[in-house]
């Protein structure tokens, strides 16, 4: 299919020069923060929010909002890439590293299923969640995370397409095998690396 040119097509959108190389293939630069959610927005109040790590673990862990707030808080500058083709470059979130959340849990498996209030799920290899690559965040650019963007808390895995960053996250289930989550059952790639353009099952 190489060599095909769309008659009369010229580029019209360009990211700022200094950000150009941070745009993965097939993505375009977006200044806003679009909202894409499957189904109605769950109404989760911080008082009712909790985070648990269960499944194949030596020690389950359950945290209330208050206990979560007491954990070491990090600011995470990052770029985010949505499989629907927009990328938001140079944004930031604030929250707790998944490494910290797994402290003392002793995972016995190499895979995880993130699960959310409202029933959403997404699967990730544990390797993509550990080593300073993933967080549970409660702030976006210094403000409390808006409900439509997953508030009070969402997963943040910026090196994968953004559907992996589960909104209204309720916990992680550690598993000894990989299983497709919500979008992964519905045609989207199991891993979702934007730099390899892993959008759909066959990519």
């Amino acid at each position, binding site marked *: *299919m190489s060599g*095909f*040119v*769309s*008659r*009369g*097509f*010229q*580029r*019209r*959108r360009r990211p700022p020069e200094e950000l150009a190389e941070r745009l993965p*293939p*097939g993505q*375009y630069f*977006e200044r*806003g923060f*679009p*909202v*894409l*959610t*499957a*189904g*109605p*927005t*769950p109404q989760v109040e911080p008082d009712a929010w909790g985070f648990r790590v269960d499944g194949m673990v030596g020690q389950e862990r359950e945290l209330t909002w208050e206990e979560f707030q007491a954990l070491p808080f990090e600011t995470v500058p990052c770029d985010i890439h*949505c499989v*629907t*083709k*927009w990328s938001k470059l140079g944004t930031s979130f604030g929250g707790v590293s998944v490494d910290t959340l797994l402290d003392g849990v002793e995972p016995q498996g190499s895979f995880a299923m993130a699960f959310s209030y*409202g*029933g959403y799920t997404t699967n990730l290899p544990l390797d993509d969640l550990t080593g300073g690559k993933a967080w549970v965040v409660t702030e976006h650019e210094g403000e409390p995370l808006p409900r*439509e963007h997953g508030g009070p808390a969402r997963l943040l895995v910026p090196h994968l397409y953004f559907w992996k960053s589960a909104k209204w996250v309720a916990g992680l289930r550690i598993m000894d095998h990989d299983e497709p989550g*919500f*979008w992964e*059952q*519905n*045609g*989207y790639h199991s891993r979702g690396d934007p730099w390899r353009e892993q*959008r*759909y*099952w*066959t*990519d």
Partner: protein
Amino acid sequence: MDRLTPVEQRAPGRWQIGTIARIEQETPRVKSFRIGLPMWMPHLPGQHYDVRLTAPDGYRAQRSYSVASSPLDAGEIELTIDRLDDGEVSPYFHDVAVEGDQVEVRGPFSSYFVWRGEAPVLLVGGGSGVVPLMAILRHRRRTMPELGMRLVYSVRTPEEVIYADELRDDALLTFTRESPDGWAGHTGRIDASLIGETGIQSGTAFVCGSNGFVETASRLLLESGFEPQQIRTERFGPTG
């Protein structure tokens, strides 16, 4: 159910070069493109295709567009595209593309916002959010016309009604900004009475439009008795 087109769930995912067979001006800023495909396969109503444009210097832009046609239209798909002035792909389709032009596409994709013959069904669309809903409505009319399905369609002005000549008594319109002369139907934003008038209080709902529209509509559906798991939504990002 056996009258539904059997569909292979696995997306083919390969790029192919389609040919624009027909262009129809739906409204001042919306056009429908019938595209013939050499490797066509039946889609589920509600699925989308990715479109890729390539410039002479190799630069590529991709966007996703919902299919508007029924999978009974073998060999072709219809993409209905809203012109976004600051966009990159939609202005190309509106201002440059003509019948006979070639365009790279791949699909169909995503099996969440799709209709597989469930009933009853309530379709709720805002503006060009009606596009994937039209694929569902068209397919039901041709396969199971007796099946309970209503479309609630919110649109700003009469001239912005997409598929105007196809809207029949299975469609309820509301005009939010300006209504036609002598209009006796609904005006203003969708509300509980409009949802109630459809006579469909449970079953499966498909909601498509801007984020604000989808939030409002899905809240109304929850209040009128739909289960959260039965409300499927598709929200527009700025897909220029």
